[in-house]
């Protein structure tokens, strides 16, 4: 069968990530459109929630098992997955555009002699052809790409393709294949977690601060609001460059491109490179003294006022309704 699809699933600490179900669902839907089949693969040691994938439309998963591959290894994962893809004639591989997916996809594409397209926000089928839409220039422009190779490795942007539950509730067929000698030329030996903080790239809600915060000592106002909302803290380039906040929080063209459900911009004027990184958020709230700030051009709701007065009230009002 041509165009067989393989959904490459990501696990951390023995659990499939939320983004893995988005990949399952997208692969299953694409298989329907192309009149082909989709299966899944996961690499790791014991995995506790593999049964859940059938709810999202895939009925068979191959678990490439090795305790030394519990953590990511670019060489080990590349070898194990590309071997499976070759043996079982998979033509299209789909991954999530996470840190792992972004790293792994290009390695796989060379091994499989495939075209590699990352960070897709739309995949359309016309006849037997696949057209991928992806942002460039940090979202300032979108391009439609035609993939010219029979084999394709595609990553999809997290949070864009929502995982829809299908009617099927039978557990999937799980084929366990032991990987006897893993290729560990490159391997992750340790994970250093940032202290209890939610990452902007994975958050549903982001509260971001800019130069209007006037100094790092005032960011507790942002942190308190974020904590109340269960949100991640973000920052503009100006405050990261000034050393007020770590670069892992930076949103924008030289930081992270995000599309949360709610983005609250506090004291951020909205430089074009910042807007590029966040204007695809579903709802945007802007709080800024300057009523002419460009951030108000993309905001759904705005308050033109003093954030030092507004933020504490916002935090306490949200506490009331939560």
């Amino acid at each position: 069968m041509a165009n067989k699809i393989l959904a490459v699933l990501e696990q951390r600490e023995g659990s499939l990530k939320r983004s893995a179900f988005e990949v399952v669902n997208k692969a299953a839907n694409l298989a329907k459109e192309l009149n082909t089949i989709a299966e899944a693969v996961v690499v790791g040691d014991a995995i506790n929630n593999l049964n859940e994938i059938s709810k999202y439309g895939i009925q068979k998963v191959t678990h490439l098992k090795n305790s030394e591959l519990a953590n990511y290894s670019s060489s080990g994962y590349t070898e194990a997955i590309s071997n499976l893809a070759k043996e079982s004639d998979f033509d299209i591989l789909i991954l999530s555009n996470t840190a792992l997916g972004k790293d792994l996809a290009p390695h796989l594409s060379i091994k499989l002699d495939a075209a590699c397209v990352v960070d897709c926000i739309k995949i359309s089928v016309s006849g037997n052809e696949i057209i991928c839409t992806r942002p460039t220039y940090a979202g300032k422009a979108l391009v439609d790409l035609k993939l010219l190779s029979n084999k394709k490795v595609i990553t999809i942007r997290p949070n864009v393709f929502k995982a829809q539950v299908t009617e099927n509730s039978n557990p999937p067929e799980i084929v366990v294949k032991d990987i006897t000698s893993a290729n560990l030329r490159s391997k992750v030996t340790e994970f250093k977690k940032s202290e209890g903080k939610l990452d902007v790239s994975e958050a549903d809600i982001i509260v971001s601060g800019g130069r209007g915060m006037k100094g790092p000592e005032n960011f507790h106002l942002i942190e308190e609001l974020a904590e109340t909302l269960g949100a991640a803290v973000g920052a503009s380039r100006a405050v990261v460059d000034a050393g007020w906040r770590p670069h892992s929080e930076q949103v924008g063209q030289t930081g992270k491109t995000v599309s949360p459900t709610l983005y609250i911009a506090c004291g951020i004027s909205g430089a074009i490179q910042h807007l590029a990184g966040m204007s695809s958020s579903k709802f945007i709230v802007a709080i800024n003294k300057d009523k002419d700030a460009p951030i108000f051009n993309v905001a759904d709701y705005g308050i033109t006022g003093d954030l030092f007065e507004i933020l504490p009230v916002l935090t306490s009002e949200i506490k009331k309704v939560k």
Partner: protein
Amino acid sequence: MKIVVCASHVPDTATRVKVGNDGKTIDPAGVTFIINPYDEYAVEEALKTKEKLGSGEVVVVTLGSDNSKETIRKALAMGVDSGVLLKDENPRDSLGVAKALAEEIKAQGAQLIFMGKQSVDYDNSIVGQLTAELLDYNCVSVVVKLDLDGEKVLAEREIEGGREVVQTSLPVIITCQKGLNEPRYASLKGIMAAKKKTIEEKAAASYTPTSEVISMQLPSGKQPGRIIGSDASAVPELVRLLKEEAKVI
């Protein structure tokens, strides 16, 4: 040791993107081009590594048209020893870039390669891994901390919610993320010295494209929303809208 830095010549991040007449690429009119910001971290890391080793040579490799020499000169002014321009007038897909770079890295015999984690134009973030796989080199992407000890490589890469410590060995390609270092400014002396350094020009290795841009569009712009008020008295209404209208809290 010979160290190669790959640098890309890209539109400034302050650029307002307009679609060109071909409907597939940006209109370059009025656009300022700069060295890709992430490649500055790569240049800095290469120079730091050479300084630490006390010897060696750093070569910057850029793929592009004659205009890209500006980016090579910028790297030379920062302290890189020499440059190579792989000439191609037309934009390439990532694999096309990787093939050209891989060929040059092989010709240079370099075992340690630095480049930015992505270019800020196409945002693919895959050229490092593609190049490494073509050369059968190791690769660590999105690196924020690096320790080299002989053949051994210990790198920290940024992932969701923290950092992964990756252990690997030379030959290796490191793709650099903001936070790895603080790129140095080119001194006046450096800028003067750069004028005497050589830039070798050669044709980029040929390739067959694996993808083709069929169109470029601007995202449908968001309409400005409502200004609810100008002080804290507007907050209850904002909270009501977020809860009842947007249904996001």
